[in-house]
């Protein structure tokens, strides 16, 4: 699992690539916290290149959401494949992290 940070308009975009499960969760959490600790923008997690995610991803996203919200930032989700979209939807995360197109 890779995470690449970039800027797109008013957003800081985190582009995730690969499979998101327990095997990469701890390293990904640390990397994201390091990438996002000084962000001045609202944050978009781009799932377009994520080929698999289980409930570990929900925990990871919620954890980042709490940290970013405490910094006054909004968090969005973009481009999830249908299966991941279903998992995110089922968890209720779209009520706090809107899905947007970027």
């Amino acid at each position, binding site marked *: 699992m890779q995470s690449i940070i970039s800027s797109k308009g008013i957003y800081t975009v985190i582009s995730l690539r690969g*499979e998101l*499960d*327990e*095997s990469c*969760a701890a390293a990904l*959490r640390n990397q994201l916290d390091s990438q996002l600790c000084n962000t001045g923008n609202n944050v978009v997690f781009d799932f377009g290149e994520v080929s*698999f995610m*289980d*409930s*570990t991803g*929900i*925990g*990871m996203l*919620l*954890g980042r959401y709490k940290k970013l919200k405490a910094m006054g930032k909004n968090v969005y989700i973009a481009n999830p494949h*249908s*299966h991941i979209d279903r*998992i995110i939807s*089922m*968890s209720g995360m779209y009520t706090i992290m809107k899905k947007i197109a970027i």
Partner: protein
Amino acid sequence: MNRFDMKLSAISSNEAFARSCVAAFCVSLNPTIEEINDIKTAVSEAVTNSIVHGYEGDESQYIDLSVVIDGDNTAIVTVSDNGRGIEDVNKAMEPFFTTKPEQERSGMGFTLMRTFMDDVAVTSSADRGTTVVMTKIIRGQKDVGTRGHNQAD
């Protein structure tokens, strides 16, 4: 009936291997991509539970995994460990319930298994382990597959 069994170390990097093996074995039932993803997710959840909760990260332990193809549309996946077991299975199956919130666990594992599979049965006893039996009815691409086969003929 067709069946395969595997035993794998309780190491999280084995999760991708486990779910890919199960998915590959189920391809004979001609599932849709969505059904394959359902199975992969459910297997990943069950294996993660064994690693994180059953064995609490003890990588010297083992997980047993089997798949039975029953008839022409049913896959039965069994994931079992000999770990610490689940104190209250009904509680554990509630959405968002987790015993490890400090590790950013979502508590959605069993919910996803039950959503993506047709039946999930969990048996567990303290310090003896947990067995999860998940059944998936493949409704899949049978019409498409048959048409394709006939055209090829």
